[in-house]
């Protein structure tokens, strides 16, 4: 970093971001430690901060901030009567969440959160991809239990009118006093990016998990006369979220602007990338890990756009240890966030 060169630092960064990042990662002077343009070490992540229950009208909410990426997640429960679910089967106790679409995530990348998001127009590809990722991960990680979303009702004991054969049969089939699921809670999970500076999935997923852990659904009962669900604000019931999966994203910077791999095969793994780094790198890797309860489980791995990150590296201990460390950072921010 020689100040006497004609270009100033910021001009160099704007004109040719790729060599700029490379120059930062490979300083000509040995006394300067290699760092990214944003001052972080290659494996250093932005420290997350989590703020729970900041929305007063949602049943659960969380604001997650990592660096300049800020996302707020609000969860709102709505009830749906089982009579109104077209494909409802009372015997289905395994796949209710997916079959009846009880989890509805939606992502909005707000205008003004980053310069590339323009007002109006349909949701961008990024927003659609993110919402599918969140949706798929919510189901595949089995984060929520269907039990928490069921609303039970006890069939009142009423004397069947005698004399009618078929009525009696109906009475036998639906036994009085028997409890059955009358309705479900549907969770609308709305994610809103207030500010966007790279790595949207990690922040969005962390906000989703934190908000679900914060969610308290009101007590609900069925009123047979009005045929609707009545809720009371008294002692709301939290959801059971035992696991705490955390997404960890990194991009791979090859140091060459062209697509061809550098001859020496040198590359840097940049954890928790910002917008500039995302635009300069082709290859990304995301791992979703859960270390709750001592054992380390991987819930999802996705890797796209290149071959620098080999299979060996992807399964290596260093990489998994880095992910575990990031998990600890997020987990402590979430549990101690209040």
């Amino acid at each position, binding site marked *: 970093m020689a100040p006497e060169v004609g270009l100033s630092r910021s001009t160099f960064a704007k004109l040719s971001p790729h060599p700029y990042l490379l120059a930062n990662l490979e300083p000509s002077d040995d006394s300067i430690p290699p760092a990214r343009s944003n001052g972080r070490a290659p494996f250093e992540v932005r420290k997350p901060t989590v703020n729970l229950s900041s929305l007063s009208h949602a049943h659960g909410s969380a604001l997650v901030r990592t660096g300049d990426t800020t996302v707020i997640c609000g969860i709102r429960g709505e009830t749906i009567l089982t009579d109104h679910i077209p*494909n409802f089967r009372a015997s289905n106790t395994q*796949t209710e969440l*997916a*079959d009846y*679409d009880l989890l509805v995530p939606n992502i909005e990348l707000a205008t003004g959160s980053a310069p590339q998001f323009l007002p109006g127009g349909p949701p961008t*590809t990024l927003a*659609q*991809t993110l*919402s*599918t*990722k969140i*949706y*798929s*991960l919510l*189901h*595949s*990680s*089995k984060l929520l239990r269907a039990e928490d979303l069921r609303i039970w009702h006890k069939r009142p004991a009423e004397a069947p009118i005698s004399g009618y054969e078929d009525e009696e049969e109906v009475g036998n089939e639906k036994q009085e006093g028997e409890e059955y699921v009358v309705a479900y809670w549907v969770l609308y999970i709305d994610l809103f990016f207030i500010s966007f500076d790279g790595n949207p999935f990690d922040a969005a997923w962390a906000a989703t998990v934190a908000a679900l852990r914060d969610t308290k659904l009101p007590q609900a009962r069925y009123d047979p006369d009005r045929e609707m669900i009545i809720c009371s604000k008294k002692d709301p019931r939290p959801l059971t979220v035992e696991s705490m999966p955390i997404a960890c994203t990194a991009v791979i910077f090859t140091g060459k602007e*062209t*697509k061809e791999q550098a001859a020496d095969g040198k590359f840097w793994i940049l954890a928790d990338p910002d917008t500039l780094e995302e635009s300069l790198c*082709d*290859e990304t890797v995301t791992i979703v890990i*859960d270390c709750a309860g001592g*054992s*380390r*489980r*991987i*819930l*999802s*791995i*996705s*890797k*796209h*756009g*290149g*071959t620098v*990150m*080999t*299979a060996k590296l*992807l*399964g290596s201990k260093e990489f*998994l240890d880095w992910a575990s460390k990031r998990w600890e950072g997020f987990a402590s921010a979430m549990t101690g966030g209040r």
Partner: protein
Amino acid sequence: MAPPTAELSHLPKADGSANFAFGGYTITAAVNGPVEAQRRDENPFEALVDVNVRPAAGVGGTAERQLEAILQPALRHLIPVRNFPRCVIQVTLQVMEAPENAYVNAKVLQPRLNLGIIPALLHAAILGLLTATIPLKTVASATCLAITNADGSTVKVDPTPAEIDQARSVHVLGFTANRDLLLAESEGSFSAEEWDTVLQTAEKVCCRSQEAENDAEMGGYGAESENVQQFMRSVLEAKAAEGLHWR
């Protein structure tokens, strides 16, 4: 499981086209390019790779956008995009047939990512690119794996949709012809050891063409899954021989 079948250059108007069928999926790929990009999306240094996935019924939703987001970087890595500045290479993938799963309620709009379809889409796209005579740095093939039992010891290659539903974890891995891992996408819950097993199995399934004959332990996979890279080569050789027949 039936071996893969393919039909090449069957669409008269597209620059390149291919029909690929395997494991209940039939995909038609149409490739156009390199053509001039629209002013709005042109890149002065490299070609834009535009991937469109169309479902068998209805219009594409968010899940199709994600499939596109998975395939696009993989194809972009295979095509030397820097050789075609200001151009666009358009790959349209139409799902013609998908295996039916009698155990689940079929929904027209599936918001969830369907991992099982990715290998078929990738293979159809590569065959389409090859028939469109778009230069490729290398070819790639992908495979779908599922860990079905509780202790994670059995890895099922090319699982059916019902098996995917029941599986503890599902993985899709793509390897280039040079045995480099090109794409990975997995869901479910699995340990680091299971991940290692999956990686090894997938590499064997995708890249075993060279040593297939003298590798005795491969016998177990041979029945279940055809080597797709070898299959693509033989289909293209047959097509080329047919094209040169008049000489």
